[in-house]
C-alpha cells in the first residue's frame, strides 16, 4: 500500500430535501494520516462523511478521488479504495463473525466468482489485526458491544481499502473499549499508511489520536489543522458554545479540554 489516494471535497453543498446541511464546504483529506471531524450535534459532520463515501450526492460541487469525480466512477471500484463504517450497521441474525467479516470482500468478488484464497487471507488478516481471531466461529449476537465494534472494523479492513471512513466508531463503548478501538485505528494507520477519517464526539480523544482536526460548524469548516493549533478555548466556545479551559494533557502534551459548566467550578 504505497499508493496514497487523494480525497477532496470541492465546494460541496449537501442537503436532505430542502434542508441545507453542508454549505459549499471545501476539504482536502490528508493522505496517510488520521483526520477527526468534530462539531456540535447537527452541524453536518456525519453528512459530510457520507458524502465523502459517495452515499450522498452533493447538490453542487463535487467529491473528487484522485482527480476524478467520485460519482462518475463505478461504485464497486470506489469500494475497493474507500471503506466506510456507518453509524449503526445491522448484523444479520445468527451470522458468525467470520462470515460477517467476509462480507467486506463483496467489492472484490464478481457476480459468479467463487470464494478465493485471497478472500480467505484478507479475512484472516482482518481478524488478526482486530484481535478477534478466537471469535471467528462465534455468533455475532453473543458478542459484547466492544467486540461487535471490532467485528465491524474487521469487515471494513477485509475490504482492503487505502481510505477508511468511520462514523462515530466509539459510540456506545465504555472508556476502555473506546481507547482500544482508537489504538487499533492508529496501529492500522502506522502499519499500512491507511488514510483514516472519523467523526468523533469526544474532543479530547480526537486531540489525542488525530493528526488533523476538522472542526465543522453550521455546515462549514470552521477550523482545520493539527490539534495543538486548532483546539483552543475560543474554538470550543465558537463551535460548541461551551465555556472551557484548554490545558496541555500531562500524558501526551496534546490539548485537553476542561469544560467549565455552571456547577462545581471554583
Amino acid at each position, binding site marked *: 500500500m504505497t499508493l496514497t489516494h487523494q480525497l477532496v471535497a470541492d465546494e460541496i453543498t449537501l442537503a436532505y430535501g430542502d434542508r441545507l446541511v453542508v454549505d459549499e464546504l471545501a476539504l482536502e483529506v490528508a493522505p496517510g494520516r488520521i483526520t477527526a471531524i468534530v462539531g456540535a450535534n447537527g452541524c453536518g459532520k456525519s453528512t459530510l462523511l457520507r458524502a465523502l463515501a459517495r452515499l450522498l450526492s452533493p447538490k453542487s460541487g463535487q467529491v473528487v478521488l484522485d482527480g476524478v469525480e467520485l460519482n462518475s466512477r463505478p461504485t464497486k471500484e470506489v*469500494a475497493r479504495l474507500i*471503506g466506510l463504517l*456507518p453509524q449503526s450497521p445491522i448484523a444479520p441474525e445468527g451470522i*458468525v463473525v467470520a*462470515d460477517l467479516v467476509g462480507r467486506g470482500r*463483496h467489492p472484490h468478488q464478481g*457476480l459468479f466468482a467463487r470464494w478465493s484464497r485471497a478472500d*480467505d487471507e484478507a479475512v484472516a488478516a482482518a481478524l488478526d489485526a482486530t484481535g478477534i481471531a478466537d471469535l471467528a466461529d462465534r455468533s455475532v449476537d453473543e458478542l459484547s458491544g466492544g467486540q461487535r465494534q471490532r467485528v465491524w472494523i474487521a469487515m471494513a479492513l477485509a475490504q482492503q481499502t487505502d481510505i477508511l471512513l468511520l462514523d462515530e466508531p466509539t459510540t456506545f463503548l465504555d472508556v476502555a473499549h473506546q481507547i482500544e478501538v482508537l489504538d487499533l485505528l492508529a496501529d492500522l494507520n502506522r502499519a499500512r499508511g491507511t488514510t483514516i477519517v472519523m467523526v468523533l464526539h469526544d474532543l479530547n480523544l480526537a486531540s489525542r489520536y488525530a493528526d488533523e482536526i476538522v472542526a465543522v460548524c453550521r455546515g462549514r469548516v470552521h477550523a482545520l489543522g493539527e490539534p495543538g493549533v486548532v483546539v483552543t478555548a475560543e474554538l470550543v466556545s465558537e463551535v460548541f458554545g461551551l465555556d472551557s479551559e484548554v490545558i496541555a494533557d500531562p500524558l501526551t502534551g496534546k490539548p485537553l479540554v476542561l469544560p467549565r459548566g455552571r456547577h462545581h467550578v471554583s
Partner: protein
Amino acid sequence: MTATTLRAGRVHRRQRNALLIAGLCVALLGVVAVTLMVGNTFYSPDEVLRVLLGEQVPGASFTVGELRLPRVVLGMLAGLAFGMAGITFQTMLRNPLASPDIIGISTGASAAAVVGIVVLSLDETAVSFLALAGALVTATAIYGLSWRRGFAGARLILIGIGVAAMLHSVVSYVLTRAAAWDIQAALQWLAGSLNGASWERVAPLALATLVLAPLLVSRRRDLDALRLGDDAAAALGVRLRPTRLLLILAAVALIAFATAAAGPIAFVAFMAGPIAARITASGASLLVPAALVGALLVVAGDLVGQFALGTRYPVGVVTGLIGAPYLVYLLVRSNRSGASL
C-alpha cells in the same frame, strides 16, 4: 489465524447448507410423490412412475397425469415463487413483516380478480391477467406513495399495510353486491386454491419462474449485503437504486404470476423466509432455502387440506391456520422487546 483454518470453517458451513437444501428437496419430492399416489383412487408408486415416463396406464394416465400432476406442479411453482418473493422483500426491507402478502401486493391482485369475476364476469384466463395487473399496479402505487426524499423501508411497510386494508374493503364491498353464483367463484379464488389446476394455468407461472428465479439467485450477494443496512451495502459497492428496483420488480412479478395462477395462498410468502432463516447456517443466502420451504408449505398444505381434515379445504385455509398465529407471535415479540423487528 490462518486462511486455512478459516477456510475449513467456511467449507463446513457451506456443506451443512448444501445438506439442508438436499434435505428440503428430498422432503419436497416425498410429499409430491404421496400427492400423486393418494386420492379417491390409490395408485402405486410403480403406476405413478410409468405415467410420469409417458406410458399409457388405464385410469392412472388421466387421474395422475391430467389431474394430480398439474395440481402438484402448480403448488410447487406457486410456493417457490411466494417463498422467493417473500424473502427478497423481507431481506431488502430488513423486516419480517415486509412480505408482499402483508404489504398489500397480493391484496391488489385479489381486489382486481374479484372485480373481474363479479363485476366484469370474465373467464378464468382474463381474471388471471387482471390479477397480474392488479399486483403490479398496487406495487407501483405503494412504492410511489412511500417515496419522499428517498426510499424508506418502514414507510413503505406502513403504507403497504394501509393500502392492503383499503383493498380488503374494496373486496368486501364488491362481494356484498355480487350474485350468489359469483360469490362462490370469488371466494374460491380468494382462499387460494389449487382446484381446477391445468397445464394452461401452470404455463405462464412456469415461464415467469424460469426467468425470474435465476435472476434473483444471481443477485443474492447484493441481497446479502443489503441485510447490513443501506449505507453499509452502498459502501461495499452495491448500487442501491438500480439493485432495489430490479429486486422489487422481479419479486413483484413472481408474486403476481403466482397469485394469478393459484390465488393469494395465505401467509406462504410471509412464513417461508423466517422458517428458512431459522434452519439455514450462518451467512448463507436464504433465497433457495426460502423457495423450497415455500413449495413444501403449499404442497404439504394442499395434501393436508384435501385429505386430513374430513372435508376438503383449499390450501390457503391450511396455510392461513399456521400463518396467522405466527403473525401474532411476531407482533407480540416485537412489542415485548420494544424494538423494531
